[in-house]
């Protein structure tokens, strides 16, 4: 491993020296904050506009065949009562009133009909809001506060669960192991392309032949992989630190949910498993992407492969509900053990607590073996594909070299 440190420091420094590295990383939490701020501001403005439109006065006619709407409320709203639906609709059409509400005899089965002057797509919602308000207030005046809360869905629960006789909160236990799932997602999504291109560049630049007479292929590949791993960790820290700081500083302003760090439960076994799965998965996919990069002549030709790899990594997310509800299912077991799909199922199942220790050990073993194999393959492909400037190496050629 002569020159490993030289390769590592060159690969690491030339990436962190680039402005685009810092821009892409720092832009991420900024974008998340911006999206949250836009969503919050937009939601707030919408609520305010809705309240404003609901408080706007409009002339109203009513036919209540249900008998639910309180006559006092009809009077308070200044609504006129029409003899039948046709009369109400005619009054709206002629411009005599702004809106007409028809409450059918059985409002549990038939919809409340609203006929009204068009006030614009957004402001038309005020008619629906007032119709519902009439019904709610009519009913709530005759029931207790508790019944009112039940009907409005304003009931909260407080659950205490026990495991082996000790109080146990599954949600709080899954937060820390779950962080590894989120980290893996971000690191691969943001770094995959760089992994793929890290070996293509030398071929594209025609620097490879000079390079390989100065450094061993294995040293070069391992140095590159180590640099990518450290860069990935730097990236994670640079995303996490501003995100945590942003959360702490803007939690109240953005009405973000409060996270009581002191109440988090630390299941060290699951945290260790999550860390090991994260590290090995990251190593495995780094090796895989470097191998793909080494086997193609240009970055352009490497492009389609990243899509296929991303599909394999993140495709299992579509079966996420199955990982939670039926971890014994054959498809879940397959996706958990097959190295190309394993990271998401393993990290997710470890976070929710249904990954058994023996499953974790077997899958980690598989990932470890595959990582060693794929790094060796990357060295082989790079060595023999290095001088193929204009064509891809076939699988047969890679395996056929002695």
């Amino acid at each position, binding site marked *: 491993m*002569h*020159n490993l440190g*030289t*390769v590592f420091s*060159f690969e690491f*420094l*030339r990436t962190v020296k*680039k402005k685009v590295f810092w821009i892409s990383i720092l832009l991420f939490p900024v974008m998340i904050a911006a999206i949250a701020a836009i969503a919050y501001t937009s939601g707030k403005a919408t609520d305010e506009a809705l309240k404003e439109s609901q408080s706007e006065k409009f002339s109203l006619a009513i036919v209540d065949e249900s008998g639910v709407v309180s006559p006092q409320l009809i009077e308070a709203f200044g609504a006129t009562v029409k003899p039948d639906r046709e009369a109400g609709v005619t009054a709206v059409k002629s411009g005599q009133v702004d809106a007409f509400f028809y409450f059918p005899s059985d409002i549990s089965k038939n919809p409340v009909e609203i006929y009204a002057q068009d006030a614009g797509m957004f402001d038309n919602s005020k008619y629906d809001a007032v119709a519902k308000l009439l019904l709610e207030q009519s009913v709530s005046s005759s029931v207790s506060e508790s019944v009112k809360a039940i009907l409005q869905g304003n009931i909260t629960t407080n659950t205490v669960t026990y495991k082996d006789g000790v109080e146990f909160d599954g949600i709080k236990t899954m937060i820390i192991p779950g962080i590894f799932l989120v980290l893996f997602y971000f690191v691969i999504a943001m770094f995959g392309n760089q992994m793929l291109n890290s070996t293509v*560049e*030398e071929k594209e*630049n*025609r*620097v490879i*032949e*000079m*390079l*390989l*007479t*100065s*450094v*061993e292929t294995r*040293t070069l590949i391992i140095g590159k992989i180590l640099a990518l791993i450290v860069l990935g960790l730097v990236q994670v820290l640079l995303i996490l630190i501003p995100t945590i700081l942003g959360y702490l500083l803007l939690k109240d302003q953005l009405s973000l949910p409060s996270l009581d760090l002191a109440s988090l439960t630390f299941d060290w076994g699951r945290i260790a498993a999550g860390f090991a799965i994260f590290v090995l998965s990251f190593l495995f996919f780094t090796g895989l992407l470097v191998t793909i990069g080494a086997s193609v002549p240009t970055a352009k030709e490497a492009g389609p492969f990243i899509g296929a790899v991303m599909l394999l990594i993140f495709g299992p997310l579509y079966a996420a509900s199955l990982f939670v509800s039926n971890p014994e299912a054959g498809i879940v077991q397959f996706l958990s053990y097959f190295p190309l799909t394993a990271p998401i199922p393993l990290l997710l199942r470890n976070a929710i607590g249904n990954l058994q220790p023996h499953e974790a050990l077997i899958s980690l073993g598989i990932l470890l073996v595959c990582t060693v194999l794929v790094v060796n393959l990357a060295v082989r492909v790079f*060595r023999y594909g*290095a*001088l193929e*400037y204009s064509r891809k190496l076939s699988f047969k050629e890679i395996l056929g*070299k*002695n």
Partner: protein
Amino acid sequence: MTKAIISVDHFTMKFGDTTVIDDLSFEVRRGETFGLLGSNGSGKTTTIRALLGAYIPTAGKLTINGKPYRVDGSVRLGYLPEERGLYKKESVIDTMVYFGRLKGMSARDARAWSQQYLERVELGDKAGIRLDKLSGGQQQKVQLGITVMNNPELLILDEPTKGFDPVNRRLLMDIIEEHQKKGATAIYITHQMEEVERLCDRILLLKNGNAAAYGTVKEVKKKYGGKSLDDIFVEIYGGRDNA
């Protein structure tokens, strides 16, 4: 007789059904400048790539200092390949220091040597500039500098003047002569016969993967009735395109 630094012994190289080199044997002696000559496709680059471990020979043995070449620092090699390039988005000095360190120099020595070399080739003010901002000729100077970093004991130059402008060609010749004086061994792969006459002690002319002529320049000329190397080249390769 001077001991051989390079030995190629019954070397055969096949790509699929095509035999590029067929049972080739020759030696390069320590301290000499050896011309490896031949028309396009005659197997010159293949021989060098096999010597440097990029290709695995179908048969035969290729050694430097008595053993197959390995990048372990035991041979101070300066190699200028036919297919050459640099890290385009890195600065001149960072690239030179990187290669200097890979060749066994300390970062400080590599930086100092690079700066001195860049001053010599009038690129002293370009050290911090990205390589893709340099002209083609300036990039060639940097490549040449990288090739001769760390005082190589063995220089392998594969068509070194290919694409070089006259200024860089002169620079290259000067540098090769400097290293000759220091006792370095050089393999010079080309089909520019005037350069061969000026620089080489012994030559090998490859034809169809075999040695068509092998010996000192004087011996080869004598064998062909005192003709110039240009005429010998034309005689050996006949009507083939040798551009």
